[in-house]
């Protein structure tokens, strides 16, 4: 009988170690295997979180590590939650969040509906549609900056072709009124395929027999859409909305590459503002409180997300 890897490992184990391991219970061996992961999790995730919460109650500044740190209680939280500039930043985030979700759900569902119709070359088109999602946000941000250039960018010429406007007459990322829409367009372009894939999974999970039964009852296509398709795809759609909502709430890289938060602070989303507070103004304690507020919000949304995910799994 040929010797297996297990046999050679068993033979190579010193007798003293082998005796010790033989005395361990299955539970203990399981713990030995899991312990490094738990240790890493504690060191990388839990400890920084607890440390951030602690810092949020102080006036610590990371650029002055030797300065005396004072305990300020809830003052950082009070200042953040009564600051009109941060409120403004939240509104910029809300604008970005609402419109990206709106367009991504609308276009994503429509694309999924089309792809689900199974026409010739649908697999090829699915691959083409999914391509933007596979790109790095930094790359997308960079090349859309070129597309938005008023002199050489393609975007202005496409808009001019359809609207008759002067292509050099507007700057998408340089105007206060247009910049928020510029980031919405890019995020929608990049992440609509993701929503489409989730909707497609939902549409393909609907049994054909339900539509056949509806046909027998002479239900119109419109009626079938509203009473079969929409309710059955809704949990999937909700999942997509929550997932994209959480991701866009934390959006940083794409917007930094595109507008850097400008013009002024028109597109300064919360994560960009937080980075400025922490690493440009070096108000570490204040930024920690800000991060805790964002963390609690994302954690709350993630709890709803997990609940929705379990509901989808139950189906």
């Amino acid at each position, binding site marked *: 009988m040929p010797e297996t890897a297990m046999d050679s490992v068993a033979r190579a184990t010193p007798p003293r170690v082998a005796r010790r391991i033989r005395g361990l219970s299955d539970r203990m061996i399981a713990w030995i295997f899991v312990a490094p992961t738990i240790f890493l999790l504690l060191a990388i995730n839990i400890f920084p979180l607890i440390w951030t919460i602690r810092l949020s109650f102080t006036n610590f500044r990371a650029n002055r590590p030797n300065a005396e740190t004072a305990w300020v209680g809830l003052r950082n939280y009070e200042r953040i939650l009564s600051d009109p500039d941060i409120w403004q930043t939240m509104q910029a985030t809300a604008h970005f969040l609402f419109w990206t979700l709106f367009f991504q759900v609308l276009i994503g569902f429509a694309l999924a509906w089309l792809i689900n119709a199974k026409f010739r070359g649908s697999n090829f088109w699915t691959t083409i549609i999914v391509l933007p999602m596979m790109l790095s946000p930094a790359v997308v941000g960079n090349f859309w900056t070129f597309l938005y250039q008023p002199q050489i960018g393609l975007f202005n010429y496409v808009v001019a072709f359809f609207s008759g406007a002067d292509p050099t007459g507007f700057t998408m990322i340089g105007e206060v009124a247009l910049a928020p829409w510029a980031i919405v367009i890019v995020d929608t372009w990049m992440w609509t395929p993701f929503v489409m894939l989730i909707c497609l999974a939902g549409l393909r999970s609907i049994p054909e027999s339900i539509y056949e039964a509806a046909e027998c009852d002479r239900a119109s296509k419109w009626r079938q859409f509203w009473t079969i398709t929409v309710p059955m795809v809704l949990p999937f759609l909700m999942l997509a909305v929550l997932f994209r909502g959480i991701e866009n709430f934390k959006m940083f890289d794409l917007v930094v590459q595109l507008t850097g938060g400008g013009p002024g602070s028109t597109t300064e989303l919360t994560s960009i503002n937080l980075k400025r507070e922490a690493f440009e103004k070096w108000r570490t304690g204040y930024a920690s409180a800000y991060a805790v507020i964002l963390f609690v*919000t994302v954690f709350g*949304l993630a709890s709803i997300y997990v609940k929705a995910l379990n509901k989808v799994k139950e189906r």
Partner: protein
Amino acid sequence: MRAFISGILRLRRGPWEMLASVLIAIGVVMLMQPYALWAFSWSFIVTLTGTVMFLIVSHFPE
């Protein structure tokens, strides 16, 4: 509605999780709305209450 209230009174997970989710959603809306600064100021408390409540009630029986 009666089932919901009964679930709340009997400390059942479903309705309590629903209540916590609603609180979280209200907190997020308060955080991002453009109308009242006081709502923004209180949003964190509401979201935190909802999140902590969610963590606790997810251990309630079905």
